[in-house]
């Protein structure tokens, strides 16, 4: 059953340098209880998609068009006070990037988690405190850390508190924006296993936003590869990794080192990500693409189904392979 349907979402930032076309015609859907990865490099627009979903955009951002249907209801059309009361945190919550900066240093961790509950629900204080203690247990923090300040917690424990906060109201959808980026690898694995077990236990849908394709392979059912503000490829995770159908995805897979397998020379993608103030005229990847032809510079490719359930935004998707 479809939980979230995003249709033709387009969002621009106005800056002094011009209009940044950060999200450009993005569509995807997410089933209940599934995990979707949005993978892309810096500046690809992946975090902007996350912020749009939670309607946490800065004031210079403008949603040009598109729908976001949560259980069939367009949540972009809901007025902000109602969105804050009914949707944000109750039905969609956020596990933010860089746990180090998302906790307020002068408040106790338990109270910060409790605030997420009391602001978005009518639970009485005593019950909210109980709920926080239960949540701390769920994420592997001992209850006596309720009154610890953020600086008294390690990086992993801070990220666990952020996760507890996101789970506080038992939302059906959690957006995790680079949930482990600042963490060391063993702590990252601890957090990934925690997220996985909670996601399964609560049958929660999750969108993981990351630059790390290995993390996508570890965690996600479906993957959308984001480039230049667009989804350029979308498929089941195993299809993306074993049979990619977009030149950018192929380039990424050749560029990432694997801890397994033979030692090899890594291959980079030549050139630079596009400037989203003045993006390339047609296909945004064309200037870096080894398969590009004249057509790629004049005609916009569309995200097309090349195999059942496998979409690619490339004129030559059927002719290229890893």
């Amino acid at each position: 059953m479809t939980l979230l349907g995003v249709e033709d979402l387009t969002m621009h930032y106005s800056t002094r340098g011009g209009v940044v076309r950060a999200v450009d015609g993005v569509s995807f859907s997410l089933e209940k209880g599934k995990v979707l990865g949005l993978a892309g490099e810096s500046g690809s627009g992946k975090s902007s998609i996350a912020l749009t979903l939670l309607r946490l955009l800065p004031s210079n951002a403008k949603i040009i068009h598109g729908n976001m249907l949560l259980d069939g209801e367009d949540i972009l059309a809901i007025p902000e006070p109602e969105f804050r009361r009914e949707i944000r945190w109750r039905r969609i919550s956020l596990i933010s990037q860089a746990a180090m900066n998302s906790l307020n240093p002068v408040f106790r961790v338990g109270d910060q988690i409790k605030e997420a509950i009391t602001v978005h629900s009518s639970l009485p204080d005593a019950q909210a405190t109980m709920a926080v203690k239960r949540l701390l247990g769920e994420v592997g923090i001992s209850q006596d850390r309720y009154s610890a300040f953020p600086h008294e917690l390690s990086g992993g424990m801070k990220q666990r508190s952020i996760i507890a906060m996101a789970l506080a109201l038992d939302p059906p959808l959690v957006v995790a924006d680079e949930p482990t980026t600042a963490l060391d690898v063993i702590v990252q694995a601890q957090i990934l296993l925690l997220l996985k077990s909670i996601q399964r236990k609560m049958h929660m849908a999750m969108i993981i936003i990351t630059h790390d394709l290995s993390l996508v392979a570890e965690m996600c059912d479906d993957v959308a590869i984001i480039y230049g503000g667009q989804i350029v490829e979308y498929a089941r995770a195993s299809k993306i990794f074993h049979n990619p159908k977009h030149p950018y995805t192929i380039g990424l897979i050749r560029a990432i080192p694997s801890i397994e397998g033979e030692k090899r020379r890594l291959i980079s993608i030549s050139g630079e990500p596009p400037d989203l103030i003045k993006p390339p005229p047609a296909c945004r990847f064309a200037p870096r693409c080894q398969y590009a032809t004249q057509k790629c510079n004049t005609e916009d490719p569309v995200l097309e189904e090349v195999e059942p359930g496998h979409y690619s935004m490339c004129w030559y998707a059927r002719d290229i392979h890893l």
Partner: protein
Amino acid sequence: MTEPRATTHDEVIMEIQDVKTHFNARLGFIQTLMGKRVLIRAVDGVSCDIRRKEIFGLAGESGCGKTTLGRTMLMLEEPTSGSIFYRGKEISALHASQLREIRPKIQIVFQDPYESINPRMTVFEIVAEGVHINSKALDVSSDEKVASMVEKALRLVQLVPPDQFTTRYPHELSGGQRQRVAIARALVMEPEFIVADEPVSMLDVSIRAEVLNVMTTLRDELDLSFLFITHDLALAKHITDRLAIMYLGKFVEVGKSEEVIDEPLHPYTQALIAAIPVPDPDGRKVSVLATGEVPSAVSVPTGCRFHPRCGYAKEICETTEPDLRNVGGDHFVACHFYEEATADFKAKFRKSS
């Protein structure tokens, strides 16, 4: 043989013997008045050598001391004890003025190309700066000579044609190009040894290889040696020749990179490898083999530093620090029970492959 040393036919460029670098932690005013002192044991007894034409990897989690060790090797930090040799000459015993003559030969490339190069200088000025500062040691006096050295360095990092880059400012360059300017700035001195401290961790994956391939080409064609500091073991496997795993100021395992990654012997190395996700949805999944997080270098555990997090720790591990010992070939490990740990690790992870 108790230390990871070169065999006689290898040419050793850098050698360190039992190097320790400790810092006094900065405390509050009152605590200082009360005479309180806290020692951070960032590097706590490390020996190794780096051979000609070798990329020696140094990996570990944040706070393990890898950056401090890199800086100490170049005498950018004064070692608390121990000796550092460059081509057999003990540079840790030299005066500042004598050290200045060696400096051009031992260079460093920093992590963040957005921070490490001056935004108000042109590429030419950035790359030439070190030559001007070291003009005596490099015996360079004419401007033409400086210009030709800069041009050569830019060619080596594949910023070609050089005259298209010399007048540009950093903000006109991409991240990968900036980092290559930072490498050129080191190369212009014609060094033999470069410490590369997380040189690609700020760059997007699609452009990392352009910087890494510059490094491997320099190794192959100019016979340069590198200390490659990284937290990314997958990257280390593909780039480095030998690899040392560092934990709380000490090496726990050293060996040929593929051996250390494919046949890890130390429980800590095993925990690191098991925790790294594989870019294959049908491949193995991550597991957690070590509990908790890295303790601070202020309160280093007794005995084996890893014992509070280790699944194989027994009484001896709490009391006796294991030596780094040779277990065949170039492979060294510091663990009392590595055989037991390795057997388990193999059974768990290598059966399927």
